[in-house]
């Protein structure tokens, strides 16, 4: 798997994977399990995925964005399984000669991942557990 992992994410390794000597900047986005969501306390999250399709979707998005921003190099890793508050669920690095493209590409990457990549999360807290987004939005 290139874009999914069951292990903790090392963002430094992602940065080193993409940075070229011509890059003047990189933007790193990390999504982190926080202790609340829509007013409810959260203790942990379980991430599930349709793994081969998620890999394909990630690849498609990376290619789209690298086409839109030809100077940008992207790396992405999404963690699956059980995560605790403070654990990183995703890291995205966008390296570029110029900062504007790095910001734009990184932002677009996380927005698009949230739209179409088949990954789901079940939040667990003192009030029980729930698959995020399911209630009435199917």
């Amino acid at each position: 798997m290139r874009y999914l992992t069951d292990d903790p994410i090392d963002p430094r390794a992602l940065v080193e994977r993409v940075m070229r000597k011509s890059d003047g900047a990189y933007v790193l986005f990390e999504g982190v399990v926080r202790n609340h969501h829509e007013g409810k306390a959260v203790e942990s999250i379980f991430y599930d995925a349709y793994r081969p399709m998620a890999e394909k979707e990630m690849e498609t998005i990376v290619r789209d964005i690298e086409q839109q921003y030809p100077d940008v190099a992207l790396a992405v890793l999404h963690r699956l399984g059980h995560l605790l508050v403070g654990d990183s669920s995703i890291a995205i690095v966008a390296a570029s000669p110029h900062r504007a493209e790095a910001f734009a590409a990184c932002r677009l990457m996380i927005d698009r991942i949230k739209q179409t990549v088949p990954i789901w999360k079940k939040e667990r807290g003192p009030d029980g557990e729930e698959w995020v987004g399911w209630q009435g939005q199917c």
Partner: protein
Amino acid sequence: MKVRLLLFAVLRDIIGRAEDELALDDGATARDVWQSLRARHPELRGYAEPPMTAINESYAAPDTRLREGDELAFIPPVAGG
């Protein structure tokens, strides 16, 4: 024809399994499969429209006709990131 159904996240919890081997009439669509799931699982009755549908690991319209050996998955609202 035979179609493999994959179940994830809330659908796996509701239906109680990760995958299923379906024997379908020729011409059946993803929408037909969804309606048969709804008929058997009361938790799905409120969902007349199927969720996003993937055939062979790509998004597809729910009215696409399935073919022998297809891998069908319903994609409940995604929440990656």
